[in-house]
């Protein structure tokens, strides 16, 4: 019964002509989404794509991934519309407070066994990694890498 009453409550709302709404709620959207400016979509160079894959150690996998990045950049470009002259960047909403610093005393630890449990390759108390100092293949040799597995 309560359900029906509420449905009626909602349906009974008059659909008023826009100007008759007395409520403080604005009857029309206060803004609209931006449209992509023709020619504004900067193409990301293959060099930058390679650089990103190298930095992130994550690959784009395919053209769709690259397209996603392009769209993300276009989306972020809307920030340029905002006037931020004289505005300081904000790192944290708690910037007006002092960071809590505790005493430099050891309060926990001795959990080597627990921590090693989750590692796949280990020897004694070491995590084992493959040989380092071997750079990832260069872009030219990366045909297959960029195209993904």
């Amino acid at each position, binding site marked *: 019964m*309560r359900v029906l009453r509420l449905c009626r409550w909602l349906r009974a709302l008059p659909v008023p002509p826009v100007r008759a709404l007395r409520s403080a709620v604005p009857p029309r959207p206060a803004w609209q989404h931006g449209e992509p400016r023709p020619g504004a979509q900067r193409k990301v160079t293959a060099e930058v794509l390679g650089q990103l894959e190298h930095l992130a150690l994550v690959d784009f996998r395919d053209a769709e991934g690259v397209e996603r990045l392009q769209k993300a950049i276009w989306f972020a470009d809307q920030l340029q519309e905002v006037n*931020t002259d004289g505005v300081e960047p904000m790192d944290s909403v708690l910037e007006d407070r002092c960071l809590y610093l*505790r005493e430099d005393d050891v309060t926990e630890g001795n959990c080597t066994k627990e921590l090693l449990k*989750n590692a796949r390759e280990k020897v004694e108390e070491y*995590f084992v990694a493959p040989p380092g100092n071997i750079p990832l293949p260069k872009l030219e040799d990366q045909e297959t890498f960029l195209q993904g597995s």
Partner: protein
Amino acid sequence: AMLRASLRQVSAALKEGHVTPTELCQRCLSLIKSTKFLNAYITVAEESALKQAEESEERYRRGQPLGVLDGIPIAVKDNFNTAGIETTCASNMLKGYISPYNATVVQKLLDQGAVLLGKTNLDEFAMGSGSTDGVFGPVRNPWSYSRQYKEKSVPKSHSEDEESNWVITGGSSGGSAAAVSSFTCFAALGSDTGGSTRNPAAHCGVVGLKPTYGLISRHGLIPLVNSMDVPGILTRCVDDAAVVLGSLAGHDPKDSTTIQENFKPFELPNLTDVSKLSIGIPKEYHAPGLSSEILALWSKAADLFKNAGAKVIEVSLPHTRYSIVCYHVLCTAEVASNMARFDGLEYGHRSDMNKSTESMYAATRREGFNDVVRGRILSGNYFLLKQNYENYFVKAQKVRRLIANDFVKVFGNGVDILLTPTTLSDAAPYMEFIKEDNRTRSAQDDILTQAANMAGLPAINVPTALSERGLPVGLQFIGRSFQEKQLLTVAKWFEKQVKFPMIQLEEVKRHDHGVFRHQKSASFS
């Protein structure tokens, strides 16, 4: 009927011995089994839950319960570390990862005697607004199976269309919202970075509270955006949210971003006189795409306050429209940094590739992360490149300050609480939702919730009414920093006025066998 009670009601029942913790736990576990098709839980910790329930029962027997939460079944989103229980973040990267420790909020709940039923499903690494992009498949909104929704559905010719009609929970804490909404637990933890607790709360018809940044510890919450993440609380009513908040809030030496002031848990007064309240209606929250239904509901709510004597005024938060763009940049940048820890060496998935450290890292990350996560990491790294740092990252940080200042100005002018919609529309059918990609969806769906994270303010979704389609719609209240008591008091008053209907879930047992088969083909396609 006990399962539909509120947390406080069931707590009183436990105290009076009307029900025992083990009985309650078993009923919840059984309901989880029969609602498996919702896919709300990734891991059900049956054994440990029953053990916790037994311990709680012993305490009640001795007349020494630990508090209101003793024996109460709860669920936790799977991006919180839980000792001895798999924590996956719905990602291949952490499949099989057994946390060696409890997140502070989990520990606090356990210390109060709560019974941890399991870990709930989410979007992979909490990135998304539908709870559809995790490796364990999408979460189904329990309201898809409610009498209210079915009554309004256009009758289809084939019976199997009923199954493809299900709606999403919203995200990314969809599993937690579905768990609370379907009565399998009395409270659940979510996380909120851009609206991830309030969005699914609105779609699932439950209360979703995002506390002030710095009030609740993030230690053990696998981070997305360090400067915006907060643990979120999902419950069936506002009073319950206050109870859970009371046990979680407070300084944590393990999280240096928690404030040092002492937090005093509070009980919410029963507000009767709202005449001293000033409610602000930020006009920019009539965003493009807001459904006419929700607009009408929002207006009706504003009138409700006005007719009760409160001062209701239109205010302006001029930078609202840039909040989502700003979030996009800051979020991807922080994600790029936070996800760097996943390299396969110390925990999580590790690729078999072992030619070199770097190639192992790259292969591990390619295998472990889904497209959404990888996309955000790459975007984030783009914005952090030396040539882009000023124009994107620092610019976004400046815009963040402008957004935060908008709120400071409005609250400084005497407004106590802001009233806004939580979502642009009611829950979309899954088949519709997946037509757009994750980033587009997140940009659309987080529009109304994101700014509160930018400014670190507390915000709460209160389920308000059912839509024409029979699905929940909620409204959002945003309060001043650390003024949760005022925020929740107003929310509670509003909740009492609107009397949101209880979900009428069909006989769930009937679904169990047939749907589970169907669900498998849908989620692993």
